[in-house]
């Protein structure tokens, strides 16, 4: 099928009233959590995951995706007006966006941020639509060794891009892989590491882990930090950017979109990394780098375009290969699997409505977001005045109800509590939970492909190096890893994370 036909299929799904409604709901919730500091999109997606299980698969993915890219829009509003990133990918938007607000240019900064996000979202949707078909076609040639090597690459990427010590990130991946294996072994039916607990037969629940680590644990740690929400009493003024501002930001948007689209596809990549890289690139390539940090419009346009593009293109590996590139995509895999959809290249051929419907919905969602954001900005700002102490008890309650409702099981709530405590421990010792959740999701898949590959080769591990695609992927992983432990890059990486 050609691109137009595919997109037509997609829009026929995305434009049904029900799916438009879920898309709108997702975008709205996403904007809301994006605006509110202290509530991350991953928390929200984890929290709402259980409630999407009753929806049709396409609707549920459309809504969850909407939350993710919606948060990229919302995050910039808080960054510009309050100088607090509503969301981690908006950190760099604070630098110049807030300076513009101080100079009375808050309106144009917000407008450029929204326009940049929309432009990037539109382009990224087209990129996903064109890149997915060849990717999925390539993936259909994959057999067990290739899949195994691909997952090695994905996990390596997650380690390279994790904050903090690489050793800890590797350990977290391995712990995740190991805990992913708890439950009945699919090949032999033997219960593994279950302590004889019947509830663990199907493995440790994905929802309790995700909600515990990304919902409750984050919340408990956030509450321990001092809250700072002094709202800048800025006049929004006119939203329209001046001609010069517009002219300066268009190329920056395009550069940001290009960079973000590439970084989003990389394993471990996504929105936050894209915005950092785009800001750094704009500053380096500018003829007047001294303007950055004092209200340069390019410093708003490029990262805002990049984070939205990165957020969207990080769906490519998920939709075509079934491999999540970051923690949010790991939650999406969880959502798909509980819906009974096995993520992988076959989704595109066996369920084209789902595949293209989600892609097309990204564009309708972006259109809705620009409408939601610009005229309603006053409403979002007033939400910032709601104190956090009125919000977090609701999150705790919804996390509990969500976890319980998956299997009507109080046991799951207990598991969630355990992983919440573990999550706090991980945060305190400086071990990131994102590599863990990726390992946990990929654990059973990796083991299955590893066992199958080794069985076909009769126990000869060389099979992973004899097949060209598999060897290429492993070599790439090794290079990435070597670069990671080389001292030169390590200092550079720390610098990037510090900025």
């Amino acid at each position, binding site marked *: 099928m050609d691109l137009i036909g595919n997109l037509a299929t997609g829009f026929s799904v995305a434009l049904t009233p029900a799916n438009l409604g879920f898309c709108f709901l997702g975008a709205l919730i996403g904007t809301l959590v994006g605006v509110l500091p202290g509530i991350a999109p991953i928390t929200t997606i984890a929290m709402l995951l259980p*409630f999407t299980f*009753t929806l049709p698969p396409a609707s549920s993915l459309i809504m969850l995706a909407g939350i993710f890219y919606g948060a990229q829009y919302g995050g910039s509003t808080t960054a510009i007006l309050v100088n607090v990133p509503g969301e981690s990918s908006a950190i760099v938007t604070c630098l110049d966006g807030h300076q513009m607000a101080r100079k009375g240019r808050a309106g144009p900064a917000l407008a450029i941020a929204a326009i940049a996000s929309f432009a990037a979202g539109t382009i990224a949707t087209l990129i996903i639509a064109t890149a997915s078909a060849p990717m999925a076609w390539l993936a259909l040639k994959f057999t067990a060794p290739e899949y195994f090597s691909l997952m090695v690459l994905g996990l390596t990427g997650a380690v390279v891009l994790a904050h903090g010590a690489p*050793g*800890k990130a590797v*350990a977290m991946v*391995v*712990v995740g892989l*190991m805990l992913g*294996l708890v439950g009945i*072994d699919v*090949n*032999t039916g*033997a219960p*593994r*590491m279950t*302590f004889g607990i019947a509830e663990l037969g199907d493995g440790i629940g994905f929802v309790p882990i995700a909600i515990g680590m990304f919902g*409750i644990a984050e*919340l*408990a*740690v956030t*509450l*321990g*930090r001092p809250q700072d929400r002094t709202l800048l009493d800025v006049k929004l003024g006119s939203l329209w950017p001046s001609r010069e501002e517009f002219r300066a930001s268009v190329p920056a948007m395009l550069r940001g979109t290009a960079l973000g689209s590439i970084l989003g596809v990389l394993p471990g990549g996504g929105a936050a990394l894209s915005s950092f890289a785009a800001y750094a690139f704009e500053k380096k390539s500018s003829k007047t780098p001294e303007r950055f940090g004092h209200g340069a419009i390019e410093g708003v346009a490029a990262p805002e375009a990049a984070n939205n593009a990165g957020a969207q293109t990080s769906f490519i590996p998920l939709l075509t290969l079934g491999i999540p590139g970051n923690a949010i995509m790991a939650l999406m895999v969880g959502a798909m699997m509980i819906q009974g959809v096995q993520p992988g290249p076959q989704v595109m051929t066996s369920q084209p409505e789902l595949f293209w419907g989600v892609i097309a919905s990204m564009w309708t969602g972006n259109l809705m977001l620009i409408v939601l954001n610009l005229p309603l900005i006053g409403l979002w700002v007033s939400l910032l005045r709601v*104190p*956090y*102490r*009125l919000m*977090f*008890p*609701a999150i*705790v*309650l*919804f*996390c*509990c*109800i969500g976890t*319980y*409702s998956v299997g009507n099981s*109080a046991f799951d*709530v*207990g598991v969630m*509590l355990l992983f*919440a*405590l573990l999550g*706090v*421990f991980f945060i*305190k*010792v*400086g*071990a990131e939970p994102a590599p863990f959740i990726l390992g946990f999701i990929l654990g059973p898949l990796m*083991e299955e492909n*590893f*066992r199958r590959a*080794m*069985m076909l*080769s*009769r*126990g*000869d*591990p060389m099979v992973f190096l004899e097949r060209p695609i598999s060897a290429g992927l492993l070599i790439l992983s090794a290079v990435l890893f070597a670069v990671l432990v080389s001292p030169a890059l390590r200092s550079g990486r720390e610098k990037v994370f510090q900025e």
Partner: protein
Amino acid sequence: MGRRVDIPDLAFAGFLLALGGLAFHLAGELQIGRAGEMGPGYVPRGLALVVVMMGLGMALRALFAGGRAFPAVAFRPLVLIGTAVALFALLLPRIGLALTSAAVVLCSGFAAADVRLRENLVLAVGLSAFAVALFIIGLRLPLRTWPW
């Protein structure tokens, strides 16, 4: 003397050793098999071994890498939110969603340093009503509303 030790790293190493050791023990009861025909215990055992080795390496480094104290933990939110979650698991099957929600909100509300009693009470009643309306009436989750 204790100054030289990296406490967070040592704690993480301890966690790895404990978890890896436990997994190794549990997986030991499973059939291992051969590389060409792996039993259910092959991969878990291998991974547990890797975890233990990483734990050992990290522990050694933490002992000599130089001092870092364990970061401050805000126990108030941790304990209160943890208790709220435990309350939910214990109470929901017994007394229904309405009262459980109120208890969870009341308990977790005190995790905020700037909590106000009356505000928290209102929030508990409001969120409880909202939860019943949304989850039982709206989404029709199979939950009881009241203890009876």
